Protein backbone atom coordinates (compact mmCIF):
# COMPACT_ATOMS: atom_id res chain seq x y z
CA UNK A 1 0.00 0.00 0.00
CA UNK A 2 2.74 2.38 1.02
CA UNK A 3 4.80 1.58 -2.02
CA UNK A 4 1.89 2.36 -4.30
CA UNK A 5 1.34 5.81 -2.85
CA UNK A 6 5.07 6.43 -3.19
CA UNK A 7 4.93 5.52 -6.86
CA UNK A 8 1.95 7.79 -7.30
CA UNK A 9 3.83 10.71 -5.86
CA UNK A 10 6.83 10.05 -8.07
CA UNK A 11 4.55 9.77 -11.09
CA UNK A 12 2.91 13.06 -10.20
CA UNK A 13 6.29 14.79 -9.75
CA UNK A 14 7.50 13.42 -13.05
CA UNK A 15 4.35 14.55 -14.82
CA UNK A 16 4.69 18.03 -13.33
CA UNK A 17 8.34 18.21 -14.35
CA UNK A 18 7.60 17.16 -17.93
CA UNK A 19 4.79 19.69 -18.11
CA UNK A 20 7.01 22.43 -16.66
CA UNK A 21 9.91 21.70 -19.04
CA UNK A 22 7.61 21.48 -22.05
CA UNK A 23 5.82 24.64 -21.00
CA UNK A 24 9.11 26.48 -20.54
CA UNK A 25 10.39 25.31 -23.90
CA UNK A 26 7.12 26.24 -25.59
CA UNK A 27 6.98 29.66 -24.00
CA UNK A 28 10.61 30.33 -24.82
CA UNK A 29 10.25 29.39 -28.46
CA UNK A 30 8.86 31.90 -30.89
CA UNK A 31 8.20 29.72 -33.89
CA UNK A 32 6.89 32.65 -35.87
CA UNK A 33 9.65 35.09 -35.10
CA UNK A 34 12.25 35.23 -37.81
CA UNK A 35 15.72 33.82 -37.36
CA UNK A 36 18.40 36.44 -36.92
CA UNK A 37 22.01 36.65 -38.07
CA UNK A 38 25.02 38.67 -36.96
CA UNK A 39 25.98 41.62 -39.11
CA UNK A 40 28.25 44.64 -38.98
CA UNK A 41 26.81 48.12 -39.15
CA UNK A 42 29.28 49.82 -41.52
CA UNK A 43 28.42 53.25 -40.14
CA UNK A 44 29.65 52.19 -36.70
CA UNK A 45 32.67 50.10 -37.70
CA UNK A 46 36.03 51.65 -36.76
CA UNK A 47 38.21 49.06 -38.57
CA UNK A 48 40.07 48.04 -35.42
CA UNK A 49 41.17 44.78 -37.02
CA UNK A 50 39.62 42.47 -34.43
CA UNK A 51 37.29 40.91 -37.01
CA UNK A 52 40.28 39.13 -38.50
CA UNK A 53 41.53 37.79 -35.17
CA UNK A 54 38.49 37.17 -32.97
CA UNK A 55 36.26 35.06 -35.21
CA UNK A 56 35.89 31.39 -34.29
CA UNK A 57 36.50 30.67 -37.96
CA UNK A 58 39.95 30.85 -39.42
CA UNK A 59 40.13 32.78 -41.70
CA UNK A 60 37.39 35.01 -40.38
CA UNK A 61 33.81 34.92 -41.67
CA UNK A 62 34.05 38.69 -41.95
CA UNK A 63 35.14 39.81 -45.40
CA UNK A 64 35.48 43.09 -47.15
CA UNK A 65 32.68 43.85 -49.63
CA UNK A 66 32.62 46.50 -52.31
CA UNK A 67 29.61 48.61 -53.20
CA UNK A 68 30.47 49.38 -56.81
CA UNK A 69 27.62 51.90 -57.12
CA UNK A 70 29.28 54.32 -54.73
CA UNK A 71 32.90 53.69 -55.76
CA UNK A 72 34.73 56.56 -57.39
CA UNK A 73 36.85 54.13 -59.47
CA UNK A 74 39.83 56.33 -58.59
CA UNK A 75 43.31 55.67 -59.89
CA UNK A 76 44.68 56.94 -56.58
CA UNK A 77 42.72 54.56 -54.42
CA UNK A 78 43.10 55.00 -50.67
CA UNK A 79 42.02 51.44 -50.11
CA UNK A 80 44.35 49.87 -52.64
CA UNK A 81 47.56 51.80 -52.25
CA UNK A 82 49.82 52.31 -49.28
CA UNK A 83 49.91 55.91 -48.13
CA UNK A 84 52.83 57.53 -49.90
CA UNK A 85 53.22 54.76 -52.46
CA UNK A 86 55.74 55.83 -55.06
CA UNK A 87 53.90 54.39 -58.04
CA UNK A 88 50.31 53.41 -58.59
CA UNK A 89 50.87 49.94 -59.87
CA UNK A 90 50.19 46.54 -58.42
CA UNK A 91 53.66 46.19 -56.96
CA UNK A 92 53.59 44.41 -53.60
CA UNK A 93 55.37 47.32 -51.97
CA UNK A 94 52.53 49.64 -53.03
CA UNK A 95 49.57 47.50 -52.05
CA UNK A 96 47.86 48.18 -48.77
CA UNK A 97 46.20 44.77 -48.49
CA UNK A 98 48.50 42.48 -46.50
CA UNK A 99 47.27 39.38 -48.32
CA UNK A 100 46.86 40.82 -51.81
CA UNK A 101 43.11 40.20 -51.83
CA UNK A 102 42.16 43.54 -53.39
CA UNK A 103 42.56 43.30 -57.17
CA UNK A 104 42.64 46.20 -59.54
CA UNK A 105 41.63 46.11 -63.20
CA UNK A 106 41.65 48.91 -65.73
CA UNK A 107 38.19 49.89 -67.00
CA UNK A 108 38.72 53.00 -69.09
CA UNK A 109 40.73 56.17 -68.79
CA UNK A 110 40.98 57.20 -65.91
CA UNK A 111 38.95 54.60 -64.05
CA UNK A 112 39.97 51.41 -62.29
CA UNK A 113 37.73 48.71 -60.93
CA UNK A 114 38.55 47.14 -57.55
CA UNK A 115 37.38 43.64 -56.66
CA UNK A 116 37.98 41.49 -53.61
CA UNK A 117 39.26 37.95 -53.77
CA UNK A 118 37.24 36.50 -50.92
CA UNK A 119 39.35 33.40 -50.65
CA UNK A 120 42.29 35.57 -49.67
CA UNK A 121 40.54 38.30 -47.67
CA UNK A 122 41.00 37.97 -43.90
CA UNK A 123 38.71 40.83 -42.92
CA UNK A 124 41.43 42.99 -41.38
CA UNK A 125 39.76 46.18 -42.58
CA UNK A 126 42.96 47.97 -43.66
CA UNK A 127 41.51 48.79 -47.08
CA UNK A 128 38.25 49.84 -45.45
CA UNK A 129 40.10 52.36 -43.35
CA UNK A 130 42.03 53.62 -46.39
CA UNK A 131 38.87 53.98 -48.47
CA UNK A 132 37.15 55.77 -45.62
CA UNK A 133 40.00 58.25 -45.13
CA UNK A 134 40.54 59.02 -48.80
CA UNK A 135 37.59 57.74 -50.81
CA UNK A 136 33.86 57.19 -50.84
CA UNK A 137 33.84 54.45 -48.28
CA UNK A 138 32.66 51.94 -50.84
CA UNK A 139 34.80 49.22 -49.27
CA UNK A 140 33.45 47.97 -45.94
CA UNK A 141 33.28 44.86 -43.81
CA UNK A 142 30.35 42.46 -43.73
CA UNK A 143 29.73 39.04 -42.20
CA UNK A 144 29.46 36.49 -45.01
CA UNK A 145 26.63 34.15 -44.15
CA UNK A 146 27.98 31.18 -46.04
CA UNK A 147 31.00 31.25 -43.71
CA UNK A 148 29.48 32.49 -40.45
CA UNK A 149 28.63 29.77 -37.93
CA UNK A 150 26.01 32.01 -36.33
CA UNK A 151 27.44 31.50 -32.85
CA UNK A 152 25.14 32.10 -29.93
CA UNK A 153 27.50 34.76 -28.71
CA UNK A 154 29.56 36.15 -31.58
CA UNK A 155 33.11 36.31 -30.29
CA UNK A 156 33.88 39.31 -32.49
CA UNK A 157 30.75 41.15 -31.34
CA UNK A 158 31.82 40.69 -27.74
CA UNK A 159 35.18 42.30 -28.44
CA UNK A 160 34.03 44.92 -30.93
CA UNK A 161 35.08 48.28 -29.44
CA UNK A 162 32.48 50.18 -31.46
CA UNK A 163 29.50 47.90 -30.82
CA UNK A 164 29.09 47.65 -34.57
CA UNK A 165 27.75 44.09 -34.48
CA UNK A 166 24.10 43.41 -34.08
CA UNK A 167 21.58 40.74 -34.93
CA UNK A 168 19.40 41.47 -37.94
CA UNK A 169 16.62 39.42 -39.58
CA UNK A 170 18.01 36.59 -41.70
CA UNK A 171 16.01 37.74 -44.73
CA UNK A 172 17.80 41.12 -44.65
CA UNK A 173 21.16 39.46 -44.16
CA UNK A 174 23.40 42.40 -44.98
CA UNK A 175 23.69 46.04 -44.03
CA UNK A 176 24.71 47.58 -47.33
CA UNK A 177 25.88 51.06 -48.12
CA UNK A 178 23.96 52.48 -51.02
CA UNK A 179 23.58 56.11 -50.10
CA UNK A 180 20.83 58.49 -51.11
CA UNK A 181 22.20 58.87 -54.61
CA UNK A 182 24.32 55.80 -54.47
CA UNK A 183 22.51 53.85 -57.14
CA UNK A 184 22.56 56.64 -59.68
CA UNK A 185 25.49 57.87 -61.63
CA UNK A 186 26.26 61.46 -61.32
CA UNK A 187 25.57 63.95 -64.09
Amino acid at each position, binding site marked *: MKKESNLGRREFLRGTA*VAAAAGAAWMAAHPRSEATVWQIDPTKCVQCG*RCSTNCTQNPSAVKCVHSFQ*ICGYCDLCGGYLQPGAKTRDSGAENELCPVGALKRTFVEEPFYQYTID*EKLCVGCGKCVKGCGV*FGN*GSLYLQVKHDLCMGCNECSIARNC*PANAFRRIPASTG*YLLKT*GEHGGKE*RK
Partner: protein
Amino acid sequence: MNRKPVAVAALLLCLWTAQAFSEFRFPMPEFESGYTHPQMNLPPVSKTSPVVDVTLLLAGLALTAWSVLKLRSRRMVFMIALFSVWYFGFYRKGCVCAVGSLQNVLAAFLLPDFAVPLIVSLFFLIPLVFALYFGRVFCAAVCPLGAIQEMCAVYPVQLSYPVQSMLGLFSYAYLGITVLSIYMGAGFLICRYDPFVGFFRQGASFNMFLAGGILLLTGVFIARPYCRFLCPYGVLLRWASRFSKWHCTITPAECIQCRLCESSCPYGAIVVPTPEDRPVDRLTGAKRFGRLLLIAPLIVVVAAGAGFVSHEILARLHPTVWLAEHVTEAEQGRLTEPSLDLDAFRAGKQSSAELYAEANALKERFKYASACFGGFMGLVVCGKLIRLSTIRKSKDYEIDRGECLSCARCFAYCPVESNNAQEKEQ
Protein backbone atom coordinates in the same frame (compact mmCIF):
# COMPACT_ATOMS: atom_id res chain seq x y z
CA MET B 1 49.63 60.21 -65.21
CA ASN B 2 49.43 62.25 -62.05
CA ARG B 3 45.79 62.37 -61.13
CA LYS B 4 46.19 64.18 -57.85
CA PRO B 5 45.00 67.55 -59.22
CA VAL B 6 41.99 65.81 -60.71
CA ALA B 7 41.23 64.22 -57.39
CA VAL B 8 41.66 67.50 -55.55
CA ALA B 9 39.47 69.25 -58.08
CA ALA B 10 36.85 66.56 -57.68
CA LEU B 11 37.08 66.94 -53.93
CA LEU B 12 36.54 70.70 -54.20
CA LEU B 13 33.69 70.19 -56.63
CA CYS B 14 32.17 67.77 -54.21
CA LEU B 15 32.45 70.20 -51.34
CA TRP B 16 31.03 72.97 -53.49
CA THR B 17 27.99 71.02 -54.62
CA ALA B 18 27.61 70.20 -50.93
CA GLN B 19 24.41 68.84 -49.47
CA ALA B 20 23.10 66.38 -52.04
CA PHE B 21 26.44 64.66 -52.43
CA SER B 22 27.85 65.37 -49.02
CA GLU B 23 28.21 61.67 -48.18
CA PHE B 24 30.60 60.92 -51.04
CA ARG B 25 33.96 62.52 -51.54
CA PHE B 26 34.39 61.53 -55.18
CA PRO B 27 31.81 61.57 -57.94
CA MET B 28 30.61 58.31 -59.36
CA PRO B 29 32.08 58.06 -62.85
CA GLU B 30 30.15 58.08 -66.07
CA PHE B 31 31.48 55.26 -68.18
CA GLU B 32 31.72 55.58 -71.95
CA SER B 33 32.80 52.01 -72.68
CA GLY B 34 29.45 50.54 -71.66
CA TYR B 35 30.91 49.19 -68.43
CA THR B 36 28.34 47.97 -65.93
CA HIS B 37 28.82 47.43 -62.21
CA PRO B 38 29.54 43.84 -61.26
CA GLN B 39 27.16 42.19 -58.80
CA MET B 40 28.19 42.04 -55.17
CA ASN B 41 28.66 38.52 -53.88
CA LEU B 42 26.24 38.32 -50.95
CA PRO B 43 25.54 34.67 -50.19
CA PRO B 44 22.27 34.05 -48.32
CA VAL B 45 22.17 32.50 -44.86
CA SER B 46 23.17 28.88 -45.25
CA LYS B 47 20.20 26.77 -44.33
CA THR B 48 21.04 23.88 -42.08
CA SER B 49 18.16 21.52 -41.69
CA PRO B 50 16.96 21.60 -38.09
CA VAL B 51 14.82 18.52 -38.74
CA VAL B 52 17.91 16.35 -39.25
CA ASP B 53 19.49 17.59 -36.01
CA VAL B 54 16.37 17.03 -33.93
CA THR B 55 15.76 13.62 -35.52
CA LEU B 56 19.33 12.53 -34.82
CA LEU B 57 19.06 13.79 -31.25
CA LEU B 58 15.86 11.83 -30.70
CA ALA B 59 17.25 8.73 -32.39
CA GLY B 60 20.51 8.96 -30.43
CA LEU B 61 18.68 9.29 -27.12
CA ALA B 62 16.28 6.47 -27.87
CA LEU B 63 19.08 4.20 -29.02
CA THR B 64 21.17 4.97 -25.94
CA ALA B 65 18.21 4.35 -23.64
CA TRP B 66 17.57 1.04 -25.40
CA SER B 67 21.22 -0.05 -25.25
CA VAL B 68 21.53 0.86 -21.57
CA LEU B 69 18.21 -0.47 -20.31
CA LYS B 70 17.46 -3.41 -22.59
CA LEU B 71 20.62 -4.39 -24.43
CA ARG B 72 22.87 -3.54 -21.45
CA SER B 73 25.77 -3.08 -23.80
CA ARG B 74 28.62 -0.72 -23.11
CA ARG B 75 29.99 -1.29 -26.60
CA MET B 76 26.80 0.04 -28.15
CA VAL B 77 26.84 3.11 -25.90
CA PHE B 78 30.43 3.71 -26.91
CA MET B 79 29.56 3.46 -30.61
CA ILE B 80 26.79 6.03 -30.20
CA ALA B 81 29.26 8.26 -28.34
CA LEU B 82 31.67 7.98 -31.27
CA PHE B 83 28.91 8.99 -33.67
CA SER B 84 27.92 11.96 -31.47
CA VAL B 85 31.47 13.23 -31.32
CA TRP B 86 31.65 13.01 -35.09
CA TYR B 87 28.22 14.46 -35.93
CA PHE B 88 27.30 16.89 -33.14
CA GLY B 89 30.96 17.65 -32.50
CA PHE B 90 33.11 17.74 -35.58
CA TYR B 91 30.48 17.86 -38.32
CA ARG B 92 28.08 20.36 -36.73
CA LYS B 93 31.03 22.06 -35.02
CA GLY B 94 29.47 21.86 -31.57
CA CYS B 95 26.38 23.92 -32.50
CA VAL B 96 23.49 23.53 -31.75
CA CYS B 97 24.03 21.94 -28.35
CA ALA B 98 21.68 21.30 -25.47
CA VAL B 99 24.15 22.69 -22.92
CA GLY B 100 24.19 26.06 -24.65
CA SER B 101 20.47 26.06 -25.39
CA LEU B 102 19.89 26.49 -21.67
CA GLN B 103 21.07 30.07 -22.05
CA ASN B 104 18.74 30.84 -24.93
CA VAL B 105 15.74 29.51 -23.05
CA LEU B 106 16.77 31.52 -19.99
CA ALA B 107 17.26 34.62 -22.10
CA ALA B 108 13.81 34.20 -23.61
CA PHE B 109 12.37 34.54 -20.12
CA LEU B 110 14.74 37.12 -18.68
CA LEU B 111 15.27 39.47 -21.60
CA PRO B 112 12.62 41.31 -23.57
CA ASP B 113 12.49 40.63 -27.33
CA PHE B 114 14.82 37.66 -27.32
CA ALA B 115 13.62 35.19 -29.91
CA VAL B 116 14.53 31.53 -29.53
CA PRO B 117 14.18 29.32 -32.60
CA LEU B 118 12.07 26.22 -32.05
CA ILE B 119 15.01 23.87 -32.68
CA VAL B 120 17.01 25.41 -29.81
CA SER B 121 14.02 25.09 -27.54
CA LEU B 122 13.63 21.44 -28.52
CA PHE B 123 17.31 20.77 -27.88
CA PHE B 124 16.77 22.10 -24.39
CA LEU B 125 13.63 20.10 -23.76
CA ILE B 126 14.23 16.65 -25.26
CA PRO B 127 17.23 15.54 -23.13
CA LEU B 128 15.41 16.68 -19.98
CA VAL B 129 12.32 14.66 -20.81
CA PHE B 130 14.48 11.63 -21.59
CA ALA B 131 16.24 12.11 -18.24
CA LEU B 132 12.87 12.04 -16.52
CA TYR B 133 12.15 8.63 -18.00
CA PHE B 134 15.49 6.90 -18.62
CA GLY B 135 18.09 8.80 -16.61
CA ARG B 136 20.99 10.78 -18.03
CA VAL B 137 21.18 8.96 -21.35
CA PHE B 138 21.97 12.30 -22.99
CA CYS B 139 25.17 12.60 -20.96
CA ALA B 140 26.02 8.96 -21.63
CA ALA B 141 26.57 9.20 -25.34
CA VAL B 142 24.62 11.91 -27.17
CA CYS B 143 26.22 15.05 -25.74
CA PRO B 144 29.41 15.62 -27.76
CA LEU B 145 31.08 17.27 -24.77
CA GLY B 146 30.35 14.25 -22.60
CA ALA B 147 31.20 11.73 -25.29
CA ILE B 148 34.66 13.18 -25.99
CA GLN B 149 35.45 13.00 -22.26
CA GLU B 150 34.07 9.49 -21.98
CA MET B 151 36.65 8.42 -24.55
CA CYS B 152 39.47 9.99 -22.56
CA ALA B 153 38.55 8.30 -19.26
CA VAL B 154 41.12 5.51 -19.57
CA TYR B 155 42.49 5.13 -16.02
CA PRO B 156 39.71 6.53 -13.87
CA VAL B 157 40.24 6.85 -10.15
CA GLN B 158 37.47 7.20 -7.58
CA LEU B 159 37.01 10.29 -5.48
CA SER B 160 35.61 10.14 -1.99
CA TYR B 161 31.96 11.07 -1.78
CA PRO B 162 32.37 14.32 0.18
CA VAL B 163 35.12 15.55 -2.18
CA GLN B 164 33.00 14.75 -5.21
CA SER B 165 29.98 16.37 -3.62
CA MET B 166 31.87 19.56 -2.86
CA LEU B 167 33.44 19.73 -6.34
CA GLY B 168 29.92 19.38 -7.69
CA LEU B 169 29.17 22.78 -6.16
CA PHE B 170 31.13 24.37 -9.01
CA SER B 171 28.48 23.32 -11.50
CA TYR B 172 25.83 25.05 -9.39
CA ALA B 173 28.00 28.15 -9.22
CA TYR B 174 28.46 28.02 -12.99
CA LEU B 175 24.70 27.71 -13.45
CA GLY B 176 24.12 30.61 -11.06
CA ILE B 177 26.65 32.86 -12.78
CA THR B 178 25.17 31.94 -16.17
CA VAL B 179 21.72 33.03 -15.03
CA LEU B 180 23.17 36.18 -13.47
CA SER B 181 25.08 37.04 -16.62
CA ILE B 182 22.05 36.56 -18.87
CA TYR B 183 19.79 38.53 -16.55
CA MET B 184 22.27 41.41 -16.51
CA GLY B 185 22.85 41.29 -20.25
CA ALA B 186 26.51 40.41 -19.84
CA GLY B 187 26.53 37.62 -22.41
CA PHE B 188 26.42 33.87 -22.80
CA LEU B 189 29.13 32.42 -20.60
CA ILE B 190 28.59 28.74 -21.41
CA CYS B 191 29.37 29.33 -25.08
CA ARG B 192 32.24 31.66 -24.29
CA TYR B 193 33.96 29.15 -22.02
CA ASP B 194 33.00 25.95 -23.82
CA PRO B 195 36.29 24.03 -23.44
CA PHE B 196 35.91 21.48 -26.24
CA VAL B 197 34.39 23.50 -29.05
CA GLY B 198 37.91 24.52 -30.03
CA PHE B 199 38.72 20.91 -30.89
CA PHE B 200 35.45 20.48 -32.76
CA ARG B 201 36.06 23.57 -34.84
CA GLN B 202 39.77 22.94 -35.05
CA GLY B 203 40.44 26.54 -34.25
CA ALA B 204 40.31 28.55 -31.07
CA SER B 205 42.36 30.82 -28.90
CA PHE B 206 45.35 29.36 -27.10
CA ASN B 207 43.63 29.64 -23.72
CA MET B 208 40.61 27.71 -24.98
CA PHE B 209 42.80 24.88 -26.27
CA LEU B 210 44.72 24.93 -23.00
CA ALA B 211 41.55 24.69 -20.93
CA GLY B 212 40.16 21.92 -23.14
CA GLY B 213 43.47 20.05 -23.10
CA ILE B 214 43.79 20.28 -19.32
CA LEU B 215 40.22 19.04 -18.86
CA LEU B 216 40.76 16.10 -21.24
CA LEU B 217 44.07 15.18 -19.59
CA THR B 218 42.52 15.43 -16.13
CA GLY B 219 39.70 13.34 -17.52
CA VAL B 220 42.08 10.44 -18.09
CA PHE B 221 42.21 9.96 -14.32
CA ILE B 222 39.27 11.91 -12.91
CA ALA B 223 36.65 10.87 -15.42
CA ARG B 224 34.50 13.55 -17.04
CA PRO B 225 35.53 16.59 -15.04
CA TYR B 226 33.40 18.98 -17.10
CA CYS B 227 30.22 16.89 -16.85
CA ARG B 228 30.49 16.32 -13.13
CA PHE B 229 31.96 19.49 -11.77
CA LEU B 230 31.14 22.23 -14.27
CA CYS B 231 28.29 21.51 -16.66
CA PRO B 232 25.34 23.80 -15.79
CA TYR B 233 22.92 21.82 -17.94
CA GLY B 234 24.07 18.70 -16.09
CA VAL B 235 22.60 20.24 -12.93
CA LEU B 236 19.14 20.22 -14.50
CA LEU B 237 19.65 16.71 -15.86
CA ARG B 238 20.75 15.57 -12.40
CA TRP B 239 17.53 16.88 -10.91
CA ALA B 240 15.44 15.31 -13.66
CA SER B 241 17.25 11.99 -13.43
CA ARG B 242 16.50 11.66 -9.70
CA PHE B 243 12.86 11.18 -10.64
CA SER B 244 13.53 8.94 -13.61
CA LYS B 245 11.00 6.23 -14.22
CA TRP B 246 13.12 3.49 -15.76
CA HIS B 247 16.70 4.11 -14.73
CA CYS B 248 19.28 1.45 -15.53
CA THR B 249 20.31 -0.85 -12.67
CA ILE B 250 23.71 -2.32 -11.91
CA THR B 251 22.53 -5.87 -11.94
CA PRO B 252 19.90 -7.27 -14.28
CA ALA B 253 18.46 -9.51 -11.54
CA GLU B 254 18.88 -9.74 -7.78
CA CYS B 255 22.00 -8.28 -6.20
CA ILE B 256 24.14 -10.97 -4.58
CA GLN B 257 26.23 -8.44 -2.63
CA CYS B 258 29.50 -9.64 -4.13
CA ARG B 259 31.02 -6.13 -3.93
CA LEU B 260 32.60 -6.55 -7.35
CA CYS B 261 30.97 -3.44 -8.80
CA GLU B 262 32.14 -1.25 -5.91
CA SER B 263 35.23 -0.06 -7.72
CA SER B 264 33.76 -0.06 -11.22
CA CYS B 265 32.12 3.35 -11.27
CA PRO B 266 34.46 6.24 -12.10
CA TYR B 267 31.68 8.72 -11.32
CA GLY B 268 30.99 7.67 -7.73
CA ALA B 269 27.41 6.84 -8.59
CA ILE B 270 27.23 3.49 -6.80
CA VAL B 271 25.67 3.68 -3.36
CA VAL B 272 27.06 0.96 -1.12
CA PRO B 273 24.68 -0.78 1.30
CA THR B 274 24.39 0.76 4.75
CA PRO B 275 26.64 -1.30 7.02
CA GLU B 276 24.81 -3.47 9.52
CA ASP B 277 27.21 -2.78 12.37
CA ARG B 278 26.59 0.96 12.20
CA PRO B 279 22.89 1.28 12.74
CA VAL B 280 21.55 4.76 12.36
CA ASP B 281 20.11 6.05 15.55
CA ARG B 282 16.87 7.72 14.59
CA LEU B 283 17.04 10.27 17.36
CA THR B 284 20.64 11.30 16.64
CA GLY B 285 19.80 11.62 12.97
CA ALA B 286 16.70 13.69 13.67
CA LYS B 287 18.65 15.98 16.01
CA ARG B 288 21.37 16.50 13.45
CA PHE B 289 18.77 17.23 10.79
CA GLY B 290 17.04 19.71 13.08
CA ARG B 291 20.31 21.51 13.81
CA LEU B 292 21.05 21.72 10.08
CA LEU B 293 17.60 23.15 9.41
CA LEU B 294 18.22 25.75 12.12
CA ILE B 295 21.52 26.96 10.68
CA ALA B 296 20.26 26.72 7.06
CA PRO B 297 18.78 30.27 7.04
CA LEU B 298 22.04 31.53 8.53
CA ILE B 299 24.05 29.88 5.74
CA VAL B 300 21.75 31.39 3.10
CA VAL B 301 22.00 34.87 4.63
CA VAL B 302 25.77 34.68 4.93
CA ALA B 303 26.07 33.45 1.34
CA ALA B 304 23.78 36.21 0.10
CA GLY B 305 25.93 38.71 1.98
CA ALA B 306 29.05 37.27 0.37
CA GLY B 307 27.39 37.62 -3.02
CA PHE B 308 26.45 41.22 -2.24
CA VAL B 309 30.02 42.06 -1.23
CA SER B 310 31.46 40.51 -4.38
CA HIS B 311 29.14 42.40 -6.73
CA GLU B 312 32.00 44.63 -7.90
CA ILE B 313 33.89 41.62 -9.21
CA LEU B 314 30.83 40.03 -10.79
CA ALA B 315 29.88 43.36 -12.38
CA ARG B 316 33.06 43.22 -14.47
CA LEU B 317 31.37 40.51 -16.51
CA HIS B 318 29.36 43.29 -18.10
CA PRO B 319 31.16 44.99 -21.00
CA THR B 320 29.94 48.49 -20.04
CA VAL B 321 31.25 48.18 -16.49
CA TRP B 322 34.50 46.79 -17.82
CA LEU B 323 34.85 49.70 -20.25
CA ALA B 324 34.10 52.23 -17.52
CA GLU B 325 36.88 50.77 -15.36
CA HIS B 326 39.17 50.75 -18.37
CA VAL B 327 38.49 54.43 -19.04
CA THR B 328 39.05 55.26 -15.36
CA GLU B 329 42.40 53.50 -15.51
CA ALA B 330 43.34 55.53 -18.57
CA GLU B 331 42.25 58.79 -16.98
CA GLN B 332 44.33 58.07 -13.93
CA GLY B 333 47.27 57.39 -16.21
CA ARG B 334 47.64 53.77 -15.16
CA LEU B 335 47.24 52.48 -18.68
CA THR B 336 50.58 51.97 -20.38
CA GLU B 337 49.65 50.16 -23.56
CA PRO B 338 47.59 51.66 -26.36
CA SER B 339 44.03 50.43 -26.23
CA LEU B 340 41.62 49.99 -29.13
CA ASP B 341 38.64 50.03 -26.81
CA LEU B 342 39.72 53.35 -25.40
CA ASP B 343 40.32 54.86 -28.83
CA ALA B 344 36.93 53.66 -30.06
CA PHE B 345 35.24 55.03 -26.96
CA ARG B 346 36.89 58.42 -27.34
CA ALA B 347 35.93 58.56 -30.99
CA GLY B 348 32.31 57.83 -30.07
CA LYS B 349 29.64 60.25 -28.95
CA GLN B 350 29.34 59.07 -25.33
CA SER B 351 31.11 61.16 -22.70
CA SER B 352 32.97 59.53 -19.81
CA ALA B 353 30.43 60.96 -17.36
CA GLU B 354 27.60 59.24 -19.22
CA LEU B 355 29.54 55.99 -19.31
CA TYR B 356 30.20 56.17 -15.56
CA ALA B 357 26.53 56.86 -14.88
CA GLU B 358 25.53 53.86 -16.96
CA ALA B 359 28.11 51.65 -15.27
CA ASN B 360 27.02 52.77 -11.81
CA ALA B 361 23.38 52.04 -12.59
CA LEU B 362 24.43 48.56 -13.72
CA LYS B 363 26.48 48.07 -10.56
CA GLU B 364 23.42 48.93 -8.47
CA ARG B 365 21.45 46.22 -10.26
CA PHE B 366 24.39 43.85 -9.85
CA LYS B 367 24.23 44.30 -6.06
CA TYR B 368 20.85 42.64 -5.85
CA ALA B 369 21.47 40.10 -8.56
CA SER B 370 24.74 39.06 -6.87
CA ALA B 371 23.00 38.78 -3.52
CA CYS B 372 20.41 36.51 -5.14
CA PHE B 373 23.20 34.45 -6.67
CA GLY B 374 24.85 34.17 -3.24
CA GLY B 375 21.56 33.15 -1.68
CA PHE B 376 21.12 30.47 -4.33
CA MET B 377 24.58 29.12 -3.57
CA GLY B 378 23.71 29.12 0.13
CA LEU B 379 20.62 27.04 -0.58
CA VAL B 380 22.68 24.62 -2.67
CA VAL B 381 25.24 24.24 0.13
CA CYS B 382 22.43 23.57 2.61
CA GLY B 383 20.96 20.97 0.28
CA LYS B 384 24.34 19.29 -0.07
CA LEU B 385 24.91 19.28 3.69
CA ILE B 386 21.50 17.77 4.30
CA ARG B 387 22.15 15.13 1.67
CA LEU B 388 25.54 14.35 3.17
CA SER B 389 24.20 14.09 6.70
CA THR B 390 21.09 12.05 6.11
CA ILE B 391 21.76 8.36 5.72
CA ARG B 392 19.44 6.42 3.53
CA LYS B 393 19.14 2.75 4.28
CA SER B 394 19.89 0.59 1.30
CA LYS B 395 20.33 -3.15 1.29
CA ASP B 396 21.86 -3.59 -2.14
CA TYR B 397 24.39 -1.88 -4.32
CA GLU B 398 22.27 0.77 -5.92
CA ILE B 399 22.75 3.53 -8.44
CA ASP B 400 22.69 7.15 -7.38
CA ARG B 401 20.31 8.31 -10.08
CA GLY B 402 21.51 11.88 -9.95
CA GLU B 403 25.18 11.12 -10.40
CA CYS B 404 24.86 8.11 -12.73
CA LEU B 405 25.72 8.99 -16.33
CA SER B 406 24.38 5.70 -17.73
CA CYS B 407 27.79 4.90 -19.18
CA ALA B 408 27.12 1.13 -18.71
CA ARG B 409 30.61 0.43 -17.29
CA CYS B 410 29.37 -1.38 -14.17
CA PHE B 411 27.37 -4.00 -16.07
CA ALA B 412 30.46 -5.98 -17.00
CA TYR B 413 31.52 -6.19 -13.34
CA CYS B 414 28.33 -7.90 -12.21
CA PRO B 415 28.58 -11.72 -12.07
CA VAL B 416 24.82 -11.98 -12.29
CA GLU B 417 25.08 -10.17 -15.59
CA SER B 418 27.56 -12.67 -17.06
CA ASN B 419 25.49 -15.60 -15.77
CA ASN B 420 22.47 -14.17 -17.50
CA ALA B 421 24.38 -13.66 -20.70
CA GLN B 422 25.64 -17.25 -20.65
CA GLU B 423 22.15 -18.56 -20.05
CA LYS B 424 20.90 -16.52 -22.95
CA GLU B 425 23.60 -17.94 -25.21
CA GLN B 426 22.76 -21.46 -24.22
